[in-house]
């Protein structure tokens, strides 16, 4: 099950203690003008763990992602990330592509593929981030360039296979059905060889069958030793894959623990059931 992801991957579950902390967020505060999008958010994620962040719309989940991946610069707080076999590093203040280079990949709430590229090319873009071929190498067709090109195709096909899109290799990304676009985006993220994968509402807009596939896929990813940080609305999916859950509301952590614990937490029930998802708080500027 995990073989396909064992490329030159750094994810090495055997070598790391299960209680290793891979991501340590403390006191993250993000404001837009007068609106506080994140308010002293702290969380920890162990290596190999699937951690879900849930909360009503506008709770600050995507803002959190954007802070972690360098798209936003929060006013306060620290984010310490420990890659496999690496020293802990501070993520804040780094550019998105640097964060990706450190081994953190993400997907977007509203799929962002390269619509006119083929599925294969989409994944290749991610895979090739770690390649070294420069313009001269490419022009002259140096051995390394040719080797990397071969590797890139092989690895990308492997990843497409892993997410179940082997048959879509040469299709244009925008022509794929929605659920497959989601999986393609995940394949592209996996291509960058992450040890931590951030999934932003991967089940949004998918049908029940696709959701089931997705659940399996997330499990398989985690099975390869990649830690998964998951934002999700769908409670059933969260409960079935996540080993722990953090609940955000109005930019604050209101509860955390195992899925079962969180489900019983009165504050969470209040935040969700009290509003029934209908009277969802207005999105803040950061969320919309």
């Amino acid at each position, binding site marked *: 099950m995990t073989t396909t992801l064992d490329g030159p991957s750094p994810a090495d579950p055997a070598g790391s203690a299960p209680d290793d902390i891979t991501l340590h967020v403390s006191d993250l505060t993000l404001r837009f003008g007068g609106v506080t999008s994140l308010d002293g958010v702290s969380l920890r994620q162990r290596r190999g763990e699937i951690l879900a962040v849930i909360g009503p719309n506008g709770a600050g989940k995507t803002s959190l992602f954007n802070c972690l991946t360098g798209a936003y610069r929060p006013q306060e707080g620290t984010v310490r990330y420990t890659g496999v076999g690496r020293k802990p590093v501070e993520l804040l203040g780094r550019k*998105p592509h640097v964060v990706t280079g450190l081994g953190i990949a993400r997907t977007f709430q509203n799929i962002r*593929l390269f619509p006119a*590229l083929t599925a294969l090319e989409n994944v290749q873009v991610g895979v090739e981030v770690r390649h070294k071929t420069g313009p001269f*190498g490419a022009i002259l067709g140096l051995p390394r360039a040719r080797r990397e090109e071969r590797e890139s195709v092989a690895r990308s096909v492997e990843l497409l296979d892993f997410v179940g899109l082997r048959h879509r290799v040469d299709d244009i990304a925008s022509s794929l059905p929605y659920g497959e676009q989601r999986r393609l985006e995940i394949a592209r993220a996996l291509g960058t060889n992450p040890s931590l994968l951030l999934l932003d509402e991967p089940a949004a807009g998918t049908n029940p069958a696709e959701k089931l596939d997705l659940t399996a896929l997330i499990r398989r990813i985690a099975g390869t030793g990649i830690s998964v940080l998951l934002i999700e609305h769908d409670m059933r999916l969260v409960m079935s894959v996540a080993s722990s859950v953090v609940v955000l509301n109005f930019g604050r952590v209101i509860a955390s623990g195992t899925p079962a614990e969180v489900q019983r937490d009165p504050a969470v029930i209040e935040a969700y059931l009290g509003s029934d998802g209908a009277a969802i708080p207005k999105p803040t500027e950061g969320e919309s």
Partner: protein
Amino acid sequence: MTTSGTTPSPEGTELTEPSVTPQRAPGPRRHRAVPAATGPGPGLLELLRSSPVHQLGACLAVSVVLAVMTGPDGDSDHPFHGIAKSVLAPRIFIFLAIGLAFWALVQVSSRLGAVKQVAGERLAPVGRVLETRPGRLGGNATLLAVAILAPQLVSSAAQQSLVNDIGIYALLALGLNVVVGYAGLLDLGYIAFFAIGAYVTGYFTTKTGMPWHSPVVFNPFFVLPIALLVAALAGVILGGPTLRLRGDYLAIVTLGFGEIVQLLANNAQGITNGPRGVFGVPNPSVNVGPVHYQWSLDPKPYYYLLLGFIVLVIFAFGRIERSRIGRAWAAIREDEIAAEASGVPTLRLKLLAFAIGASVSGFAGVLYASEQFFSPQSFSFQASILVLVVVIFGGMGSRIGVVVGAVVLQGLAFYLRDKVPPADRYIYFGAVVIAMMIFRPQGLVPSRRRRREIQLAEAGIHGADPLGAAPDHAA
């Protein structure tokens, strides 16, 4: 918000940006929903699409404009004489008749709906053959053969034009294509690097051309690598601080840069010899072992030299386009945020595109300068625009396309030299460009990716566009 249950549409994804781009979606796209809702108005295209009466009106209007375009001149003392003589003279009937015939043609063909299908069926196999590898090779070989034979068949004035107007512009367009077509950056000051290449040549190859010159003079061939580096460096210097800017702002800054370079060339008489230009750059020559060759006034050898470089550049850029760099550029062009999140160092790759584009431009500058004479007039904003129009017209992102663009547009200009009053040439140029944008915005020979992107844009899906896709990192 896209929540589970709603049918997700690409349009929906557009409206619910995950907040990395605080600015609104770019303009024209936002109105996509509107035209569908409002009724047809009398614009040119929808007239052609709407009722026959409206189409007739448009056809006749175009006829009248064409009559005025081709009619007699006026002057400032009698400003409307030209128009009056065009519209009130009997020749207007010729134009109205053509307009009418055209309208009838449209009516008939759209009723039958056959023309396109027949043409499509006939052309489809050709298109399919051309898409295969041997087909492509064959097509390219044919093009190359035509290019090699071309100067043998035309007059020497046309040969001169092949070198000065077509060859140089094809090379420039290939370079700009990297910036605009591959990386999706709109550069309106591209000709500045051309100027830099030319002046570097002036500096290194002659002691008489410019007041400011190098202590030792070189053969223009030896200046090629220097100019390449200097231009690339200029590209990096310009690009470094500006490539962070959003699409249109980048366009304006590059425009400003282009103007500054031209104005400096024009005004710094003590350095560049000002508007008098640089005269006396030696012709390039080859002296390797037994091979001695000196280029001279004859345009033909220059043409083949240029052709050689163009083929080389086409080949090299093809390699780059198909490499990880080309894919990363495509990614940046289509969705910069996603590219960045996928680990693509966007700024560095944009700089690379800028530097490569600039170096080709500098390269072209050397060849241009070594043809004896150049002046700042060659480096005007109009020239930058002309290169851009060549790129778009030929087919953004397509190497063969931009060369074809140079051949067609500049060839048209040369052809019109004798056929219409010389000063009227640009009226036709403008009209052709507008018509092209209305009927075929992807260009004459678009790249496959670009064609898809245009189709996606027309469908309202996130379009890759030098003016549209660049995000604002100010947040």
